[in-house]
C-alpha cells in the first residue's frame, strides 16, 4: 500500500487562511510555533497535562500538543496572538498599544502571572471557559472557576490572581471575543 507520510491542509489561524504541507506527525502546537511563527502558544509538558498549549479550535479550548495538525483541515484556530486586535508579531509604539481582549486586560490589571510561561494557555482557556459557562448558564464563583480551569497549571503558583482576574471578567458579563 502506498504510504503518504505528509499531507496538504488548509486551515484558518487568527482569521488568516493558510495552506500548508505538514508531516503527519506534526502537532497543531508545533505547526503554530514552527511553521506559522506564532510562538505565543507554549509547549509545557507536551502530554496534555499542563494546559500551556491551550488554543481555541473551532471556538473550543483544546490542548494543541495532543492534536495532529493533519486532522485540522478546514478548522479555525485562535491563539493568544489572535485575541487582541493586533498580532504580537507586529511591533507597536507604546502609544499604539493593541486593544487587548478583556481577559488579557484583567490578567494585566490583577498581575495574574509571575514568569508568564503558562499565561497564553491560561488566557485562551479562560476565554473558552467563559463561553462554556455562559452556554450552560453556570454561575462562576471562585470554586467553580478553579474547577473549570484545572487543566491549566501554573508552577509559579499565581492561581490567586488568575482566579481573581477571571472572576472580574465574569462579573463584567464578558463572555465571548
Amino acid at each position, binding site marked *: 500500500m502506498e*504510504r503518504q507520510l505528509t499531507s496538504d491542509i488548509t486551515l484558518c489561524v487568527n482569521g488568516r487562511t493558510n495552506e500548508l504541507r505538514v508531516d503527519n506527525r506534526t502537532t497543531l502546537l508545533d505547526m503554530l510555533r514552527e511553521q506559522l511563527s506564532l510562538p505565543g502558544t507554549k509547549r509545557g509538558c507536551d502530554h496534555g497535562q499542563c494546559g500551556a498549549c491551550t488554543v481555541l479550535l473551532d471556538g*473550543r479550548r483544546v*490542548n494543541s500538543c*495532543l*492534536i495532529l495538525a493533519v*486532522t485540522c483541515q478546514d478548522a479555525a484556530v485562535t491563539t493568544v496572538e489572535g485575541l487582541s486586535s493586533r498580532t504580537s508579531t507586529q511591533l507597536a509604539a507604546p502609544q499604539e498599544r493593541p486593544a487587548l481582549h478583556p481577559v488579557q486586560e484583567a490578567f494585566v490589571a490583577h498581575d495574574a502571572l509571575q514568569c508568564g510561561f503558562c499565561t497564553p494557555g491560561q488566557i485562551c482557556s479562560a476565554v473558552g471557559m467563559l463561553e462554556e459557562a455562559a452556554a*450552560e448558564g453556570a454561575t462562576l464563583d471562585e470554586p467553580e472557576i478553579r474547577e*473549570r480551569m484545572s*487543566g491549566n497549571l501554573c508552577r509559579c503558583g499565581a492561581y490567586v490572581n488568575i482566579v481573581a482576574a477571571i472572576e472580574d471578567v465574569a462579573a463584567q458579563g464578558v463572555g465571548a471575543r
Partner: protein
Amino acid sequence: MKPFAYQRPDAAGTAVSTVAHAGAAFLAGGTNLVDLMKLGVTAPDLLVDVTGLPLRQIEPLPDGGMRVGALTANSDLATDPVLRTRFPAVALALLSGASAQLRNRATIGGNLLQRTRCRYFVDVTKACNKRQPGDGCDARDGEHRDLAVFGTQTPGGGPAPCVATNPSDLAVALVLLDARVELLTPDGTAQMSVHELFRLPGDRPDLDTNLPPGALITAVVLPPSPIARTSTYRKVRDRSSFAFAAGSVAAALDVADGTVRDVRLAYGAVAHRPWRAYAAERALRGAPATVDSFERAADEELGAARPLRDNEYKLPLIRNLTVGVLRGMTEASW
C-alpha cells in the same frame, strides 16, 4: 515518533475495512493515542481518522433510554440536559475526568478505549506485560499505589501478569447502568454490554477489552431504568481536580420503608476492568437501609480483593466511599 500515513474516510464501512490492515489504528480525539505515539508505546503505520463519520448524535429514546454516538465529545454529553436527568452518574463521571480542554476533544468511544496510565506501561524502558507480553511486570514490586486490588491473582492463586487499572470514569458509570456498545466489525454490526467489553488480564494482559479485532464502537446505548435517575458518582484523587482516581464509586439506590428495594454499585480504579460490585448488591437487596448494612455489603465485596504491597489503603477508601455515598442517597430520599 514513527512516520505514519493518514486517511480520513467518510463512511464507517471504509474505516473498518481500512483498519483491517495490520499496523492501522483508528484515531478519534487522539488525546490518549497521540500521547502514546509520542511516548513510543504504540507505533501505527496508518491512522484512520474516524472524526468525519456521522456518529455525534445524542438521542433520547422514547423508552426512557439514550443512544450516544461514539464521536460525541465528552463535554457535549456531560452537559446534555436529558442525560443529566435520566443518567446523572454518567454526567458526574464525565465531569470528574480529565480537564475541560481534554473533555472538549476526547470522544465517548475513545474514552472507553483509553489505555491504562500505569507508569510502567507508558515507560518503554520498563518491563510491562501489557506492552510486551512475556516481558514481566515492574509494577508488581514497584510504585503501584494507584493500581489494582481486585484480580491481582490468577484463579490458581499465582500473580496475575498485569496489575494495571482501567483509567476511565465514564466506564464505571456505564457498567453501573448496564449500558451497551454498538459496534461495526468487518463482519457487520454487533453489540455487547460495557461490562462484557472489559476484561481481567488473564493470559492476554495486552488486551484491555473483548472487542472483536478491527471493531469500531459506533454508539453507546443506555437502557431505560427508573433507578438510574438516582444514580451518582464520587471519585477520590490525590488533588481536587484533573487527576485519575485513587478510587471511585458509582451507585444507584431505591429505598422504600427503610428497606433497600434495589441497588447498583460499581467501583473504579480498583481493577483491570470497571468493577461491578455484584456481591455487595446481593448483600444489600432486601436489607435495611442502614450504615450497618452498607458496611457489611462493602465488606462482602472487598473480601475478594488482593491488594499489592502499597495499595491496601484502597480497601478502607472504597469501603468508606460506599457507605458515604449510599448513606447520602438514603438521607436524600427521606
